[in-house]
């Protein structure tokens, strides 16, 4: 069957099998290996991407289901060489060690901050409750999100000052 979807702003049309999962479409067909594949049973969260702006586990979505929809992956976060603030936050606060869980964490946390720019620690932990990190530990991940939230709030305030009469 044929599927057409937009991934990080670019439209792709491919011939696929009905059983193909979105995670495999992204990694094996489009070569976007930033999205990881771990448990395959919707438990670990390394495969999280956005489907129409909503974090979903791409191992639990058929590629065919994404037909006609917009997907955003970790490759779609940075603008050229400029990291997204959430990526910068993980870098500043040691939010990753091996990096296996990181793409899913980043996509989940970016979505959280877009919806809730000033989350409490509890809200951050709830947002990442479907993600497993086996090496960094969650404390630094939470700190990374808090760093990003503070950084983005400060950036927004500076911008406001700049435009104020």
């Amino acid at each position, binding site marked *: *069957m044929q599927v057409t979807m937009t991934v990080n702003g670019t439209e792709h049309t491919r011939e696929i*099998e*009905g*059983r193909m*999962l979105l995670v495999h479409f992204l990694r094996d067909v489009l070569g976007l290996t930033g999205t990881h594949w771990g448990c*395959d*049973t*919707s*438990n670990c*969260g390394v495969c*999280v991407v956005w489907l129409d702006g*909503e*974090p*979903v*586990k791409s*191992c*639990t*979505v*058929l590629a*065919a*289901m994404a*037909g*006609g929809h917009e997907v955003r992956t970790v490759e779609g976060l940075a603008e050229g060489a400029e990291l997204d603030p959430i990526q910068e936050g993980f870098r500043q606060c040691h939010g990753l060690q091996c990096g296996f869980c990181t793409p899913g964490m980043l996509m*989940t946390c970016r979505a959280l901050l877009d919806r809730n720019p000033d989350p409490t620690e509890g809200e951050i932990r*709830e*947002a990442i*409750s*479907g993600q497993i990190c086996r090496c960094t530990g969650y404390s630094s991940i939470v700190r990374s999100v808090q760093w990003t939230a503070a950084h983005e709030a400060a950036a927004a305030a500076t911008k406001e000052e700049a435009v104020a009469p």
Partner: protein
Amino acid sequence: MRPAAVEYIAAREVGEVLAALADGETSVLAGGQSLVPVVTRPGAPPCRLVDINRVGGFDTLAEDDGCLRVGPLVRHRAFESGVVGGALGDLLRVVVQHIGHPPIRARGTMLGSLAYAHPAAEWPAVAVTVGARMVLDGPDGRRTVPADTFFTAPFTTARRPQELLVEARLPTLPDGTGIGYAEDRRSSIYPQAAAMAAVTVTGGVVSAAALCLVNSGPHPVRAVAAENALLGTRFSDTAIALTAEVAAEQDTRRLDDDATRPARRQAYRVLARRALRHARQGAGRCG
């Protein structure tokens, strides 16, 4: 071994869904949170799926005629903010927080969970607790099945293979009702045991009581003897303890053997007590 072929049909209207289901072998694909892992696991048999995610008008979520009407594409997450007032809204909001985690709740649907009928799932328990009615559409037209006869066995319901679950109707709960939910959960997927309560207090006395024990048998059941023990009482600590005692006598043979029964009884005793205490906080208030 790779999974076998999946034939995928993207339906755009209800007629196309029913036409696809007519062969009795096609499965409805809603949020896919239970179905996708099953059909794509290695060794799974070939299957035919009709994806309902693009069907218009399936996201009904409206209160009407004393009922909350829920359509097939209403995701779990919709219930996180009070979608309806009163105790029904409270129950939905409290319960949804326990289902999986955020990405699961963003995709999974209430009707998918009802159709899937996992014996430990939250929505079937809600349906049984509040006395929901399931609206099915199929080759012989529409029919309505009450929750207490809809769930028949683990992963089995009164739905015929040709039928689509088009709506769940959840009756709103009367003024003076308080709700409670307590569970024993060891992982993010489904509780080991849980108790759900909706108790109405009128003039200081319990006038209606629903107590549902989750994962105690093949499908969620109301602990009728325990409910009767609570009726007419003043909802005191003693009445709660007594009711929980009766609830713990519930038959849990499907899941238990002689070794596990005492611990499971104790679990239901404690969970029933917690759910009822939680319900008491909201009971007796007038809207």
